[in-house]
């Protein structure tokens, strides 16, 4: 159950990043360890991505630590933790 929820969060995160970066969600998943800076996401773009994730997952405003904003993988993990209340 928890795994399914995690997959749903990852899918939403990667889809939001894909939209912002002009990539496919599969490509974002493949490059999940790369830095968001390196992928070309500035802070304005990152803000749009967070808002999109909140909208899709129906979450309140996300307040993530900087460590969660490093790469697609850390972002997915950070959002998953936030959805669990962690």
């Amino acid at each position: 159950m928890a795994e399914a929820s995690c997959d749903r969060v990852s899918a939403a995160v990667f889809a939001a990043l894909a939209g912002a970066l002009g990539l496919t969600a599969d490509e974002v998943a493949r490059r999940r360890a790369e830095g968001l800076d390196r992928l070309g996401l500035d802070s304005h773009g990152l803000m749009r991505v967070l808002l999109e994730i909140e909208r899709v997952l129906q979450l309140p405003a996300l307040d993530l630590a900087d460590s969660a904003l490093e790469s697609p993988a850390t972002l997915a993990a950070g959002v998953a933790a936030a959805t669990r209340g962690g």
Partner: protein
Amino acid sequence: MRVRLSGADYFHHLLHRINQDHGGSGNCGQLRLRLERPLADPRGLEAAWHAAGQQAWTLGATYRSSLRGPYWRVRGPADLRLDISDATTDALGDAHLRAGLSDVGSRMRLAYAAATQPGVVLTWDHRLSDARGVIALLDALPRLAAGGRLGDRWWSPGHREPAGQPATLAARGVHARGSVEHIRGHRLVRLWRPGVPADNPAAPLRRASMVMDPARVESRQRAATGRLSETPFLLAAVAAALEDIGGIGGDLLFPLAVDGRPRTGGAMLANQHSFLFLRVPEGLATRDLVLAARHLKDAHRQWVAADVTTKMSAALSFFPIVGERLARAELGNRGGGLAASCLVANTGAIALPETWFGSRVAGVDLVASVPGRPGLAVLFHRDRRGLVCDVIAAGAVPRLIPPEKLAQCIAFQLTGRVLPQADP
């Protein structure tokens, strides 16, 4: 070919008219490339520039008006020429900024200053592109000199619409209606006045640059406010610096340029940026820089969450008169109750090849013409030298806010001011 204007095009079209109405040269941006030594291959640059005009047809586009509003007319390849001058880079840049682009028949002009202070000056019409697109063109020139191509997507009309902007008039009308509340909210704000009368708007601009250590600024910013507050932190520093210099009162309202272009693809010459209007309450940045940055970040978030950039863009293209009133109010012209404005942009990293036509680019300075009435622009970017803050002041503003002093004050706020969260 007739090309419909995008919202960003409209915004800059209005600025262009405001500038020209008040005696300015129009809405020009300019890059000054500081070269370490004269170009080894100026003829190669000349050939590449000519090739750019042959491939990116919008460089030769003209603006026309009709009952349906202004539009671009693209007629075919532009015949671009490289000017070679014995003047210094700054003298050449100043002259081109005063003259504008009306005498060259294209949306860009490129000049090479081969004298004691070698450099390349690129002046462009802001209705064509933003700074990032122009930098990408400079980056592509060595490839063109080697026979490469830009590709059609560089000027394709389909790439001029901002992301999320609906194409139909009815859908844009709905968005446009939603913009009114945001416009009204800002027009009720008491804005800063420099306390000096408007003077000759055609007076030369004064500019100054300050180079800072990017690692120091970033580490302080990240420690104090986190990654999402990068640009809000810079804005808060500008607000505090303006208040430190004194002579102004009231809230500060910053029109902040935001690049809405997709990160991939080749739509580089499309004007796809928009504006946020972010307000800093009077005295907040002076009292607490970190709190001011957080306040700006929250305002930025609210602006994006309400999708105001799309609404504004729709408003500008749907009923330009509202856009014109907005632009005049927010940028310091008539009716808004303010006598000056401060336009801020953060262009990010400017990366050019290590060797550019046989010379190394030591650094790049950004210049922009500001509205014909007294005005101020603060432009941040990063190049080989570090984090660069370019300050441009026009009209009567330099008397009250000398650009050199403002640049120093901003640098102090970013690198020297004690921040509880950043300085143990």
